């Protein structure tokens, strides 16, 4: 089942990978987010070219977790970031591929 879409990091945020943990700062209000290693991987893959399902597959391969768990982690994390307003979700990838 295809869910969600192609997550894209907000260009207005500043982020760095500090020893495997992504640190994100919002310019508007200087809010800081620190991501755990799993969330950090998802963040780095959220460049608009990968569907959330594909990100789930990459997560599964890297951490050897069950596919359902990987999908759930990606969905939950993307929901949090959407709520924080620091990613957007596209229906079409930046390479023109449509979500199903």
């Amino acid at each position, binding site marked *: 089942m295809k869910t969600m879409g192609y997550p894209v990091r907000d260009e207005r945020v*500043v*982020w*760095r*990978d*500090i*020893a495997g*943990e992504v*640190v994100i*700062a919002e*310019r*508007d*209000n*200087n*809010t*800081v*987010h*620190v*991501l*755990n290693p799993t*969330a950090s991987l998802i963040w780095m893959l959220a460049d608009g070219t990968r569907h959330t399902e594909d990100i789930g597959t990459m997560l599964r391969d890297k951490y050897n977790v069950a596919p359902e768990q990987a999908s759930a982690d990606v969905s939950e*994390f993307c929901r*949090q*970031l959407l709520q*924080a307003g620091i990613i957007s979700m596209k229906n079409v990838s930046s390479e023109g591929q449509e979500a199903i």
Partner: protein
Amino acid sequence: MTRTTARPLLHRVMNSAADNLVPFQATIEVTSRCNLSCKHCYIDVRAEHELSLAEFKGVLDQLAESGTMYLLFTGGEPFTRPDFLDIAFYAREKGFMIMFLTNGTLITPAIGRDIMRLEPIFVGMSLHGATPDTHDGITGKQGSFTSMMQSIELLQELGIRVSLQTLLMDTNVHEAAAIKGLARSLGAYHVVSYQFVPTRRGSLSPFNYEADPGTLFSYFDSEPLAEDPPGPVKGEVCKAGRGICAISAAGDVSPCLMMPMKVGNIREAAFTGIWIHHPSPELTRLRSLTWDDLTECRNCHLARYCQKCMGVAYSETGSLTKPAPSACRNAAIKAEFFRRKGVIA
């Protein structure tokens, strides 16, 4: 995911960065030139060959790759450099969180709008007095107070956060309360300090302008207690040289703006070479320091009141482990402050 604006999370990130030698906070001195001549200024060395715009862009590329997120631009006076905004806009493009320290005398409306586009965390300025006479007397330039006030007003109108700092000294401590009131009326964040810094060449002449402790106390006595007495000394000595770095106008790399220890030059070696692959013996020594190495400080009865800056101590004594006389004086003042407030016996 953790989200906060509070200090503890940033402290955790800073600790992680320092442990992994990531220069999370960097200070860039874009020029050593200044249009003012503040009597207590620590810069007594003028760079003869300042880094060019292209060289600064190279520095910013390297810092971004090294993990620097917070970038403080200072001088001299940054806006004396005609291409300073080009450097700043490049930093914005490279994804840094930017901060400025300026004397606020060269910010025109057009520059103000450029600063707004850069979305800095804050623009910091030194408020030396509540009146033109006091402020200008310290900066050595008539009109500097008025132009700074105009800049503050302009930046506030543009929605830019202004952060003011006041160093209490012999010629302004008498109007400390008025300075605080002025900062409040301007709607600016404001911090007060009484810690001077030796000059780059190691001269202690700035300390000649320290406020008389008695006058400091008459100010503190009128102030409400705004902090808890500090707890026992613990933890690390300093993040300089690990999670913090500084680059001078001439390209010298140092562990911190306050620590004039040249550990390399960006014209002679890549930043990662200086910072990671081939750290100088002094930098390695600094990184290895613990409180156990600071035997005199660790055993001092004033240790918990001491806000010793390793950089000031180094420039004041030439040693990384000796007590800094100015820090000792200030620790005694702080202890007396808590005594007067009845917090400690």
